[in-house]
């Protein structure tokens, strides 16, 4: 069965968890969100350029229109997750002191959720026009 040099049990290998206990899920999610990010990024830039110099009323109307609102929401959700993973990677690379590390990781989650939720809520409000 498994050779003496094999460090992992067959179950561990089947689960693909490795030393991090969570496998390569976040690595993969970072790739998925980066692929999705390219067209969403271009779409965001087009939307922003189209809104330059327009009045508040016009901006509200365009941002609230279904197609633009959906693109904005996709951008926000995708970017929020992508940046959360990215900042976690940066923190794990540079912050080694346990307490500070956990506080930074927590802060990263709070910040990402807050920014993402606030942006998404604003788009929904513009869209539903309440």
């Amino acid at each position, binding site marked *: 069965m498994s050779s003496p040099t094999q460090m992992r049990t067959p179950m561990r290998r089947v689960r693909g968890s490795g030393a991090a206990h969570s496998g390569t899920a976040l690595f993969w999610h970072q*790739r998925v969100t980066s692929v999705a990010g390219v067209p969403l990024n271009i779409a965001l830039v087009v939307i922003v350029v189209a809104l*330059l110099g327009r009045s508040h009323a016009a901006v*509200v109307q365009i941002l609230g229109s279904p197609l633009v609102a959906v693109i904005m929401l996709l951008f926000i959700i995708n970017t929020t997750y992508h*940046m959360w993973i990215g900042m976690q990677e940066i923190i794990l690379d540079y912050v080694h002191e346990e307490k500070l590390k956990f506080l930074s990781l927590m802060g990263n989650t709070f910040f990402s959720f807050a920014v993402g939720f606030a*942006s998404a809520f604003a788009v929904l409000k513009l869209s539903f026009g309440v």
Partner: protein
Amino acid sequence: MAEVETHRITAAQRPRPLSPHLGIYRPMLTMLMSIAHRFTGAALYFGMMLLAWWLIAAAAGPNAYANVEWFTGSVFGRLVLFGYTWALMHHMLGGIRHLIWDTGRGFEPAEREMLAVATLAGSILLTLVLWVIGYLAMGGPR
């Protein structure tokens, strides 16, 4: 004798040999691009607050939106947005470069160098093009 023994350094206490880190390498373009990718990512992370502010202000009403317009119309605001545009373009192109690498391609020295130059030149070019289009869309600088 006792004093000598307490000062004796055991093998475990002796400084261990360390593998070489960033400090020993001559800065190279590919290295700088790697750092720039992480740096622009971190900058965009905090820059998302600008997007949130803009959207919330638009949803809040004309007065709140006027504050955003005041900021984006100021010299400082324009500089921030210009930097934001470059960071976004650089991180996007750098990300595409990483996706190319993920397929196992582009690792030869000449290819790495070409990708690094393309990322840098492309991000600067795209930023300038976008700002020209932006000013044209607004009907000239103001």
